């Protein structure tokens, strides 16, 4: 009887992560809703661990991750996203909390949860630039530095992003934190140790989103083996890229939609597993909405 209940709880946990198991797998792993990731060698994202989610700057990795984030939010989990270089567009993520995640991977389980988690974003480079400019406007200039040296450099932004990630982990509010590092490929040893220490005291899963740089002409096998061997201390490594078959949707006057499949390689503890996700997209029509018409009754203030 007890065994049956445990199995049932495991199945329910698979459907509604973070709700049914306590102290066991449910506390340790976050299911993504994507079958190939949840049922393979990784079985989801490990809490208190760093998972690398990488690919070329355009490879479909963020689209897949958005699906996973929407899955978590609809199941009552809180997700933080540290957008280091402020590249996200708000409209793409506006309905993630409600479980709307755009092109659905065909192998993704669609669930309707009762509790809605939060999805919050920190746009690091933007916040830092605003802060610096406000300091300059107020005439507060640290240690007599010139205005030129107050410009935000990429190094500053990266350091700030690490600080923000550490604070988000330490707050123990978020179940998953996505750290979008852009093309900054490597962790400094000291920072890595700090993040690991912070993770050990929390229940958060840290997902490091990295953009790999374009490679010269390589065979596909060579690229895959490189990915499998590129562990740097992360628990699991997942690498994605666009692949065939590419679906083209014709419109009334030509091509309306390009939708490639996403190929992924998941590696953990020396083992690798291939996965593929096809996207279920449809043609956008932005003209369903309209801009706000200005209120002509009030004349515009003239300078």
């Amino acid at each position, binding site marked *: 009887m007890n065994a049956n209940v445990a199995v049932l709880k495991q199945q329910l946990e698979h459907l509604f992560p973070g709700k049914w198991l306590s102290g066991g797998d449910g506390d340790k792993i976050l299911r993504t809703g994507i079958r190939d990731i949840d049922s393979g060698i990784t079985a989801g994202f490990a809490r208190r661990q760093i998972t690398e989610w990488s690919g070329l700057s355009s490879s479909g990795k963020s689209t897949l991750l958005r699906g996973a984030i929407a899955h978590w939010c609809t199941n009552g989990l809180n997700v933080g996203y540290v957008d280091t270089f402020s590249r996200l567009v708000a409209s793409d*993520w506006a309905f993630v909390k409600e479980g709307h995640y755009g092109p659905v991977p065909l192998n993704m389980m669609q669930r309707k949860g009762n509790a809605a988690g939060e999805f919050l974003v920190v746009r690091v480079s933007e916040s830092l630039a605003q802060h610096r400019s406000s300091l300059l406007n107020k005439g507060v200039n640290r240690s007599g530095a010139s205005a030129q040296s107050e410009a935000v450099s990429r190094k500053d932004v990266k350091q700030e992003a690490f600080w923000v990630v550490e604070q988000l982990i330490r707050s123990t509010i978020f179940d998953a934190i996505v750290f979008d590092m852009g093309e900054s490929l490597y962790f400094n040893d000291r920072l890595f140790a700090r993040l690991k220490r912070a993770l050990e005291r929390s229940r958060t899963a840290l997902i490091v989103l990295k953009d790999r740089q374009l490679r010269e002409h390589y065979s596909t096998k060579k690229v895959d083996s490189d990915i499998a061997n590129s562990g740097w201390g992360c628990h699991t490594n997942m690498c994605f890229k666009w692949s065939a078959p590419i679906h083209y949707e014709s419109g009334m006057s030509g091509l309306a939609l390009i939708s490639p499949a996403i190929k992924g390689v998941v590696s953990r503890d020396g083992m690798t597993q291939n996965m593929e996700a096809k996207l279920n997209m449809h043609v956008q029509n932005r003209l369903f909405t309209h801009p706000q018409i200005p209120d002509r009754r009030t004349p515009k203030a003239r300078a």
Partner: protein
Amino acid sequence: MRLSEARAVCSELRWRDYDDSLYIAAQKEMISYLVECSPRVSAIQVGMFLLDAEGLALLGGENLFARNIIRFVSQKGYTEGYIGLADSAFAATVAAQQQRRWHIVAPGKDSSFLSSLSVDYLPISLESKDTLYGLGVERMGQLTALPYEEVTKRFEKEGVVAYELASGIDRRRPSLPKIETSYQCYVDMGGPIESLNDTLFVIKSMLERLTCLLKQAGLCAEELTMCFYSDDDLFEERPVRLIRPSNQGKFLLEVLRLSIENRQLEKEFTSLRLIISKTSPELFKQVSMLSGDGTKLESPETRFSSDSFLLLVQKLNTRYGENPLLRPVAIDHYTPERAGAWQPAIGSQSTSLSVAVDYVKASAGNAALVSGLVLKRYAQPRSILVEVHKGQPETFTSEGVLYKIHRITTPECLSGLWWEQPVRKSYYTALVQPSSSNDYLLVMLVYDHECKTWFVEGEYD
């Protein structure tokens, strides 16, 4: 007098911008002085005070009272003082504006005093004043001569107030001034301090004392100010605003530590003053009995109202000046870059698009509202050189790399915003391959018709 002329008279003259807090501080100071003249004193606006002038018959009368106050105020440095005495506060303020040092309205004559004066004195909107003038009502007496119901019907609430004031009815009364306690601590170190640990040690002991006082008074700190002195010379005054009022020493210490860490002091200090510059009454909220149950998981709502969340927001606020924790919201607009906005997670009123999410989900599925791939925009759109063959882009060069366009969609031509900054753009999605790689990229190509230039605005990821 112009500033240059004034400087010619007084070379040490300094220009200072209008600062509301300075006026309020001067006003509070003046109230504390005026208590010596009358037990009930209150300020109704900047530079205008109400004093209780009842029961003066045996103290030399109203004239002596007015003369004494003018003399007293002049001694404090305010030589341009005017006094009005009347039954109602409004009549007294109008009497004080009659360009005489003091003007006394006889008891019971407020209405007749006001009747000959202009309606401009009434605290009503400009639009209502214009309407009154339009109706031929220029004096308060003409207003009170109208039937009360007609005025109420025409001007509603504002008309009622104006009618009552013009009739000499004003419910404002001077009150007993509140005694303001200042919560501050001052420590003279006896020598220069430059280490953070030593500073925090001192601040901790100061906070212990201040929070104890606050708790006794049932107050919470809203804003703290740290003043750092070097040999009695104030070199830094740092206000620290709290995201939520608190009288918890640990929390306040953490906030001050963050402030010092984020913006280090210019030099070592020899004395420190810590001031609770703003306070608010402490709220006592009933905590759920189950909240202490360690076996129960916290709900998302609980976590986002918890102290740890507030501390996180406070940390980010202290570091970046404003709340960088943002929430994406949709906006009723069709160009991709303007279809959404980032809104602070707390402390902002929601202005998002209201969407019947359940209806859309049921009728068009999960992907209906967010139909595309995730776009990652560049900080600045990259201008590119495009080679076009038979009207179709074939290749482009960006930052020294040649990209071959394999497939490209028909453009989505969007224009608008003619009332702000006109936008006329053609948006393409292109599957491209860099010349030096086997990999494919999906990019957003944009042709800006306003500046006749091609751009890559971002990549689909």
